[in-house]
């Protein structure tokens, strides 16, 4: 056999080995994940009543039963709808405002330096402390929850995008200036693209903040919402109801952040460092 043929054979064999290993790792990973979920569910289901009191723990089957029952009777939908609107609108408004405000920074650095302490102070406020005031101002409806959710999203996105805008090195900007780049060109062609990975990561974090903000608001005072459902379950000592609400929130949060995965992949391909 000639050397090139032999090399080709070697390459092919190594490629196959590599693929086989990757496949094995993938299978192992998912097997373990499934096992963990199964073990937790089984322990929970059969431990309830035996290892711990079912009246406090609920059971997985009970949670599913509760969910189905709520869905059938129709009482789930108003709660779900309210929370969905609060989370989605709060997320959209907060993220949009955060990006917008941060993008003004390159045009008004001096103004930003002046107001920075105020932003910092506002950032430090536990947003839950705002909820009662907002309820006082805007009533028991959707508005106060939506505002808490959007404020929380705003800060996450704003702070991270500002960090991203500041991440471009001064030397790179100087090199571009010497090439003839105007301030506007520096902003659009260097600062904004530098900030993008930071913003996308912040948007993922913000998806959890939106859910958190909405539920915080509902806990303070509300007529409808998944938070109300959870509160009701708690006061009725019905753990299955509480966990049904938690399950809904988990799924919602995962869906929202899952939307950004393709975007993160795309950025990761170009800049794997971040």
């Amino acid at each position, binding site marked *: 056999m000639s050397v090139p043929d032999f090399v080709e054979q070697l390459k092919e064999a190594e490629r196959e080995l590599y693929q086989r290993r990757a496949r094995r790792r993938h299978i192992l990973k998912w097997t373990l994940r499934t096992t963990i979920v199964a073990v937790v569910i089984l322990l929970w289901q059969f431990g309830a009543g035996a290892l711990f009191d079912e009246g406090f723990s609920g059971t997985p089957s009970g949670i599913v039963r509760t969910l189905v029952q709520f869905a059938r009777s129709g009482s789930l939908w108003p709660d779900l709808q309210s929370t969905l609107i609060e989370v989605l609108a709060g997320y959209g408004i907060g993220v949009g405002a955060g990006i917008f405000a941060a993008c003004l920074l390159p045009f008004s650095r001096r103004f930003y330096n002046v107001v920075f302490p105020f932003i910092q102070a506002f950032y430090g406020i536990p947003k839950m402390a705002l909820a009662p005031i907002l309820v006082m101002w805007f009533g028991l409806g959707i508005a106060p929850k939506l505002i808490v959710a959007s404020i929380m999203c705003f800060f996450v996105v704003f702070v991270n995008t500002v960090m991203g805008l500041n991440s471009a*090195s001064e*030397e*790179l900007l*100087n*090199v*571009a*200036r*010497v*090439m*003839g*780049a*105007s301030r506007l*060109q520096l902003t659009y*062609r*260097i600062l904004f*693209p530098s900030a*993008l990975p930071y913003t996308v990561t912040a948007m993922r974090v913000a998806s959890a903040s939106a859910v958190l903000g909405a539920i915080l608001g509902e806990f303070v005072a509300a007529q409808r919402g998944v938070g109300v459902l959870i509160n009701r379950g708690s006061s009725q000592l019905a753990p299955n109801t509480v966990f049904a609400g938690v399950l809904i929130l988990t799924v919602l949060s995962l869906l929202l952040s899952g939307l950004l995965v393709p975007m993160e992949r795309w*950025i990761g*391909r*170009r*800049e*794997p*460092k971040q």
Partner: protein
Amino acid sequence: MGDHQTSIIELHGVYKVFVSGNKRNPIAMLALQNAEFTVPQGEFLTIVGPSGCGKSTVLNLIAGLMQPSSGQVLYRGGEIRGINTQVGYVTQDDNLLPWRTVVKNVEFSLEVRGVARRDRERLAEEHVRQVGLTGFEQHYPHELSGGMRKRVSIARTLAYNPDVILMDEPFGPLDAQTRLVLQDQLLSLWDEGKQTVVFITHDLVESIVLANRVMVMSCSPGRIKNIYPVPLAHPRDAFHIHEVPGFDHIYDQIWQDIREEILAQGRGASCASNGSSR
């Protein structure tokens, strides 16, 4: 270089003072003292000297990124006001845009100069080829070696054909072999284009192999110590420069100068630390 050639860069009695520290007790430091030299059009000038002796300050003044505290920096006879976009700047760090492919990085300089798309693509492709990166057009910077990234950053600068190219230790972070190859490539690019180049290095051999003249700077405060013409014929071969007659002589001459500087530094006249703080 003959005297008949017009000078493109002139520094006359240039001083530069930097202020740092807090506002209660600002520290003023003399970075450059009475710099006086001219660069004729088409010359390759290298600047050597210990780090922190104002080499980069000289480049920043020529690029218009800094203004002199006193004295004049002239470009084609006129004082430089604001950023000097007639020049190109190649830094030690390659400063590529990580979200752009090789060819898009080269196009960047043309984009900001408003070159039409079709010309841009043609010029970018041409310069990618010129620096020997054909086949890597669609790669992202993180997929390239340090030497290749450096070539992209040189191609990006050459693409808009600036009259003067300022290079601040561009080959500093590269390994010895890659450095030699890039020095040789830079020499042949210069032989073709005859741009004016001001090139900072602290590698003595590099400063000689590339230059028409070598400027030695000294420290505390930064000032020009001597300027040596390099009487070696062009085109030069970076790989065999040691064998060229006359190389040893010029090398020894400049080395004596630099040795004094290093010894002076050893005696405590440190460069990067404070100069005059009163």
